[in-house]
């Protein structure tokens, strides 16, 4: 697990404290009942704080799994 992934897992863990690191890496809106709209907004805020990104809430519909979030953050983090 590289540093970026570790930071992402930490972000997810703060929003979904009941998930293990292993569960986080496979987490998605479908598999995590606690991943509702409030959790999604909180996750975006946490990611913005952690990575210094400006994430538009318009992008929320795309951020539906750990894998998708990781891809998004890697793309925008390297661009910033």
């Amino acid at each position, binding site marked *: 697990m590289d540093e970026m992934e570790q930071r992402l897992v*930490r*972000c997810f863990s*703060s*929003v979904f*404290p009941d998930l293990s690191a292993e569960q986080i890496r496979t987490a998605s809106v479908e598999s995590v009942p606690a991943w509702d709209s*409030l959790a999604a*907004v*909180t996750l975006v*805020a*946490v990611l*913005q*704080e*952690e990575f210094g990104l400006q994430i*538009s*809430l*318009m992008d929320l519909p795309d951020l539906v799994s750990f894998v998708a979030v990781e891809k998004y953050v890697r793309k925008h983090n390297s661009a910033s």
Partner: protein
Amino acid sequence: MNLVEALEILKKDAPENEHPLRVVLACGFTPLHLQTFLMAHLRKRLPRRVEVKTGLFGDLAGSLERLPASEADVLAVVIEWQDLDPRLGIRSLGGWRTTDLPDIVKSAIQAAARLEQALRRASESMPVCVCTPTLPLPPLFSTPTQRAGEYELQLRQLVGSFAASISRESSIRILNSQRLDESSPMPARLDVATELMAGFPYKLPHASAVADLLAALIQNPVPKKGLITDLDDTLWAGILGEVGTEGVSWNIEQHTHMHGLYQQFLGSLASAGVLIAVASKNDHALVEKAFERKDIILSKESVYPFEVHWSRKSESVQRILKSWNIGPEAVVFIDDSPMEVAEVKAGFPEMECIAFPNNDYQAIWDLLRRLRDFFGKSVISEEDSIRLKSIRGADALRESRAASGGTLDDFLQSAEASIQFGFGKQPGDSRAFELINKTNQFNLNGKQLSDAAWKTYLNDPASFLMTVNYQDKFGPLGKIAVVLGTVEGKKLRVESWVMSCRAFSRRIEHQSLQQLFKTFDAEEIWFDYVATPRNGPLQEFFAGLLGVPPNAGVRCSRADFREKSPSLFHRVEVMNG
């Protein structure tokens, strides 16, 4: 605190308490991260479990009007401009034409009146913490943004008047906007994107700043009671023994004005009932002379006692604490010498000991603000204004008794004491509430009451509240005792009984029981007595009255009391009996 830190705090196990603090957070917008931050800041400040619930959003006044009294222990209300009129927010497209402005002000006045009524009603059953609008007003006014126009000023005046009006309620605490300005700059408050996309208008640092101050308001820390100050290079600039009484200074001309400001600040504390004493290694006669200077700002009448000699400061502090009859945890010690500060701190680890930052203007200014936080209180009571007088009186009484050499009966007979008993059940009696929650030594069981529990108790038709005011020829003590209980036919059940330590040795406790038997025509009083580590004086009283050390479930019959009570010499007056 950032959001990740807040979430991490909330992940940790909360302390287990029987009764969590139940907070309702009411706001017109989606509370989202504000709720998270409020829970985290409360968790940091309070050693107990906290629940923060939120209500319906969008209609703040309506939410407050529908809030059941039993729902919470504390209500936190965050008002934003759109709660006064939706057109003052950015989610509404109701019109910003110049012709709309008078109507916006008019509807804001009506909304503020409705909010005020709802907040007053809520404050009857629980403490209410209120944050007035924190966000910038939108650019709807016709003036350029650097110029304040009539309608904008009317809106600001409305909020100021509204806050001033409700702040008079003892149960309503208003968040200080100046303090918020210091921690959250105006341009960094509104998050337009999350307001429009998620209904949450705050940037995260602003949400944390608001939550932090709300948590502090909810915590409502107990103010400290006394301040002990040094003199040389602290209360004034210069060493009195070296430069003489005219050589010490506290003025602008000699660049020693910050000492004058410090004196002025201590005078302000004294006028609010804070005890001020002097502990100085100095010549006593010189100090007396210095305090006779006409330009001294802190008068010697505001200071008691003066410990001026060459002994160790910790000995002075010990004597001052004894005279004040309070614990070191309630006192701040200030001295310009770090060595003296360390010596006192070693003797009294619980005491806040601060080195006076002599010659550092900014640091002295910061110290004054810090001291205001230590001593700040919401209400200045009658007792605050007579506290110093009554402590002087208590010392005079002790000295007078020691000098007279007569019996206690002789002494009390000549004390010209009068007691006023009050039986009005006033939920707004903040002094009675304060006594119950702060008195340790003469305390029936150490039980503390929340604001909500206090009000619920007094609303019970079977309950009674007896308050006790005392004065004698040595001065007034003010309201010094409270008895809380219920009437069950010819039996009284006393659930709380506290008396200030300033009132010991005057047989006020005996007179209080006699009055209870008389007022309620009671045959027996049952006490919810519990021994605590600190209620020794109460235990001694019961042991004296009963002839044996008290156990749980202490009872006293009228006949037993009549037989055991010593002679009582007070003049008694009963109010609302």
